[in-house]
């Protein structure tokens, strides 16, 4: 992972998972991707989201882009924010600086590992371990969900296709990155 | 007609074309009144009927079974018999059951094939080994055989076992006298014994209601009419709350489906019963050659005796973790039974708030091994109106006082 903090004396390391590139499937770790979560409680959460993010929240099970960032619905009052690490960190800082007691913004960039999966076999590679229906019409570009990847949880979003082939971003807990890597290596 | 079973009688019947055998038990039609009624023709109900007649001389007994005897959990369990219990109350009770099992083939003149090939509880980490030691000591202090072995001994005793696995095996607790028995034979043997002593075994008869007067039971309503008695015992496992509710008695029981599997039969490849706490898998090999494998409970209420796929996957993974070579063997059949689960996994045996109504339930996933003692103690309660000393701690009050006998906790599971 890239070092996002220039003043850091400590060197940053990330999970060591080899990329997989073969016909029909590529699985690469997305270094430098910032990942954060916004939580707001109460019935007015969506309205508050709009105030804070400046955009209407994504519909359930969808992800929308705004500027450099993507906002994905995770649960009522819960969103995942992804984008360049610095941008995500800045966004979290701004949200936190509001000092509001009804929200919690947490940077999960260190806690999670993201993979980009592309290729005609991407769906099959996922279907080996993930119970979601990832068929194109059930899970179109812009869809996002949390589910399982074998024994661990995953977040998955379908990004814009590359050519004819689908492209997915999946995010797992960083302690399970090696496991996820092993699963895909076999797919 | 041949009634007694022996090699000699088989020989004689062989010459006679096997034509002289008596029915193993007689089917009876319900009579209007009995001295005692036992609801449920599983192992516990049948044993209760047998001991009512045998131990207490009460022979005017109706054993009422909704379907066919032995068709409940008694006919669908993984048949593990052990008394490696932790608390003195449970240890004494299950040891009594095991001792009765040791003599049961002779007692009933019916080969129940109690195969005392031992039972191993595996230790997968330091803490697991400490808990096994704690159990081994408790067992021996309760007068029960127990041996604690290290990894090398386990490996030597159980060929093919993979001790250097994801869940490594550091050692194991063996109860040499534990084992397994032919489940059906236990039901049929007790039925035959009870029937010979005069008990009416009434199949295809469902209890649908109770006759109650002055806070005392007076009989039961069944799909085959009213049957009267002042003493009614119930041993219906997963259906305990359903039946007891008809008597106005509430029980702290949840009914969950427990699954089991058998593989195709193969030549002897596993000589003992094995339980691996880390994978939640237990397995043994039956005399016929199948691997008999148990899984966990689907933790949502179920009265459907259906198998479920996730448990099949987990059990398979557990088997391969222990025996990587078994990966190429094949599952032949998958089924489930409805277990009567109580919070502390200790049975409830004894009287209820309804006079004359006694229960035997709460066996959860482990009541096969208890059948002789469960029947013995329910019969005692029904015949004498008092709790048998061995079952004294198994009353329903414990859920109010908090005096639970939590065996699951004794295996180190803190919740």
């Amino acid at each position: 992972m890239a070092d996002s903090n220039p003043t850091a004396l400590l060197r940053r390391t990330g999970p060591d998972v080899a990329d997989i590139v073969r016909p029909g499937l590529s699985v690469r770790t997305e270094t430098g991707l910032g990942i954060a979560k916004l939580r707001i409680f109460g019935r007015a959460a969506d309205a508050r989201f709009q105030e804070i993010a400046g955009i209407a929240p994504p519909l359930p099970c969808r992800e929308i882009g705004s500027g450099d960032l993507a906002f994905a619905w995770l649960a009522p009052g819960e969103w995942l924010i992804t984008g360049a690490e610095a941008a995500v960190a800045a966004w979290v800082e701004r949200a936190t600086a509001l000092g509001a007691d009804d929200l919690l913004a947490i940077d999960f960039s260190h806690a999670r590992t993201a993979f980009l999966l592309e290729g005609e076999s991407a769906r099959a590679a996922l279907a080996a371990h993930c119970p979601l229906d990832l068929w194109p019409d059930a899970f179109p570009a812009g869809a996002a969900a949390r589910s399982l990847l074998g024994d661990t949880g995953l977040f998955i979003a379908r990004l814009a296709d590359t050519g004819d082939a689908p492209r997915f971003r999946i995010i797992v807990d960083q302690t399970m990155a090696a496991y996820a890597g092993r699963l895909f290596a076999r797919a | 007609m041949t009634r007694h079973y022996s090699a000699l009688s088989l020989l004689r019947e062989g010459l006679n074309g096997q034509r002289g055998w008596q029915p193993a038990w007689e089917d009876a039609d319900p009579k209007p009144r009995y001295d005692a009624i036992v609801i449920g023709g599983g192992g516990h109900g049948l044993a209760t009927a047998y001991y009512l007649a045998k131990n207490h001389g009460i022979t005017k007994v109706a054993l009422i079974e909704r379907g066919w005897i032995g068709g409940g959990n008694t006919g669908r369990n993984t048949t593990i018999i052990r008394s490696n219990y932790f608390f003195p109350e449970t240890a004494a009770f299950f040891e009594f059951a095991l001792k009765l099992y040791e003599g049961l083939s002779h007692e009933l003149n019916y080969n129940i094939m109690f195969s005392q090939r031992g039972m191993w509880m595996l230790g997968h980490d330091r803490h697991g080994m400490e808990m096994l030691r704690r159990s081994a000591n408790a067992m021996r202090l309760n007068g029960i055989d127990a041996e604690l072995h290290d990894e090398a001994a386990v490996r030597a005793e159980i060929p093919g076992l993979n001790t250097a696995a994801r869940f490594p095996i550091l050692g194991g607790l063996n109860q040499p006298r534990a084992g397994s028995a032919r489940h059906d034979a236990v039901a049929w043997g007790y039925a035959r014994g009870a029937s010979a002593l005069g008990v009416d075994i009434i199949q295809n008869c469902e209890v649908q209601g109770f006759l109650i007067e002055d806070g005392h039971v007076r009989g039961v309503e069944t799909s085959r009419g009213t049957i009267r008695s002042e003493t009614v015992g119930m041993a219906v496992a997963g259906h305990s709350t359903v039946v007891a509710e008809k008597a106005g008695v509430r029980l702290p029981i949840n009914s969950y489906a427990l699954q089991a599997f058998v593989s195709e039969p193969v030549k002897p490849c596993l000589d003992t019963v094995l339980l691996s706490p880390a994978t939640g898998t237990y397995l043994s090999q039956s005399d016929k050659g199948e691997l008999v494998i148990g899984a966990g409970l689907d933790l949502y209420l179920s009265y459907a005796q259906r198998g479920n796929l996730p448990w099949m996957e987990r059990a398979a993974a557990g088997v391969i973790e222990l025996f990587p070579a078994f990966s190429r063997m094949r599952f032949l059949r998958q089924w489930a039974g409805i277990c009567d689960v109580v919070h502390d996994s200790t049975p409830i045996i004894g009287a209820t708030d309804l006079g004359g109504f006694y229960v035997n339930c709460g066996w959860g996933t482990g009541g096969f091994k208890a059948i002789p003692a469960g029947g013995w103690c329910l019969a005692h309660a029904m015949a004498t109106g008092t709790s048998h000393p061995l079952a004294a701690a198994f009353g329903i009050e414990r859920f109010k006082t908090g005096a639970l006998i939590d065996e699951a906790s004794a295996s180190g599971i803190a919740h």
Partner: protein
Amino acid sequence: MLLITCPHCGPRAEIEYRCGGEAHVERPGPHDQVSDQAWADYLFYRANPKGGHRERWLHVAGCGQWFNVARDTITHEIAAVYPMGETLAEGSAA
């Protein structure tokens, strides 16, 4: 393996969920005024019906939300799914 429709995420496989047992069980209190029996009822005594049952489920691997389900314990048919904090209207199935 059941297929349960999360009110937020839609139909998902059983392995994504955890069942939390009977729904609408009230926690008695305050603690110093609850009888042993009332507490035992709360901890241990459940309807455990053969047939229609209302229970709560957690979408652990999905949205992390609890919700209520009306399910038949014999057929596993799901008659209704409804949010936490609501009760099922009388007369609806299960």
